[in-house]
């Protein structure tokens, strides 16, 4: 359990450096003007996906895949995106932002606690409506070789996307034809 606490401390110190704990950076992404947050996340997923596969193959980690409960994932994703746009933080960054002195993140946490309570109360009636449950599926292939190929492709795509986003703003018209490569 101490790992959870320390992971929280380290994640806060890390993403603070990129400003992901700040409203302006998150909403700047929502307005497609600031891509520091998605670049960081894409690199994290690109690096971790290939290393996790190695770790998993060595037996040092187990898969912990969330079930594909279609209506819940789609509906929840839509609500989550709307909430993140208005709030400017996500569940993990709210306490980090509050620690930095952003009091609005504290108000968001109060809202989040109320939502947690409402969901807990509604869960017995709500759960059957979230399906269909397609199970804990991930995109690993049957054969080890194909899985390595597929995960490598995914990893490279994430990293490439991050570097593509690291270009001068697409909004400002630029005659730089080299950017077309």
């Amino acid at each position, binding site marked *: 359990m101490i*790992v*959870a*606490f320390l*992971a*929280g*401390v*380290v*994640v*806060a*110190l890390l993403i*603070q450096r990129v400003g992901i704990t700040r*409203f302006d950076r998150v*909403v*700047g992404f*929502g*307005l497609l003007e600031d891509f520091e947050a998605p670049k*960081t996340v894409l690199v994290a997923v690109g690096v*971790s*996906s290939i*290393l996790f596969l190695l770790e998993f193959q060595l037996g040092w*980690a187990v898969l*912990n*895949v*969330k079930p*594909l*409960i279609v209506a*819940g*994932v789609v509906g*929840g*994703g*839509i609500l*989550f*995106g*709307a909430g*993140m*746009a208005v*709030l400017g933080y*996500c*569940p*993990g*960054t*709210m*306490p980090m*932002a*509050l*620690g*930095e*002195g952003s*009091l609005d*993140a504290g108000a968001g946490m109060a*809202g*989040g*606690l*109320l*939502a947690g309570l409402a*969901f807990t109360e509604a869960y017995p009636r709500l759960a059957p409506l979230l399906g269909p449950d397609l199970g804990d*599926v991930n995109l*690993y292939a049957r054969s080890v070789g194909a899985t390595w190929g*597929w995960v490598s492709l995914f990893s490279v795509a994430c990293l490439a996307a991050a570097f593509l986003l*690291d270009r001068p703003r697409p909004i400002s018209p630029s005659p730089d034809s080299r950017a077309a490569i």
Partner: protein
Amino acid sequence: MRSGWPRRWLWTGIALGLLNVAVANVHLAGRPIGASTGYPWAAAVLAGLRDSLYFREIDVAGAWELLFLAGGFVGGLLGAFVTRSFRLRTVPALWERTRGPGGGRRLAWAFAGGFVLVLGARLAGGCSSGHVLSGGMQLAASSLLFAVFVLLSFVVTARWFYGGAR
């Protein structure tokens, strides 16, 4: 010519990815990072709902994630003090430009936003941490689908909510 030196996003992303792989190791946590289950866990404990169906399902994960949130608060505080950037603030600059300077209005919207955000995370079974970072790491189908719908809704809502006043 490239902007972004020292490319903090790159080194931070690498460190974040390494950390999540390390945390998932069976000798450490044996599970990847997640955050949003901490909210219903804390709410159920505060409201005395430990007997509820949902609490029994999230008991272990929720306690872990609440500690992650607590660590996040301490890390945020620590980093802000070390870099001398701690400052009590209520209305972010971009919000003030687009939605006005009212602190009460900002707090009310933040409360509503936090409610919708965590409700969405619980319906989907994860958030930016558990679904996007950790699910993405494992190429989970649910997490990739979640990421697509979050992105669409996030961009559309941001444009509608802040775009008009700019």
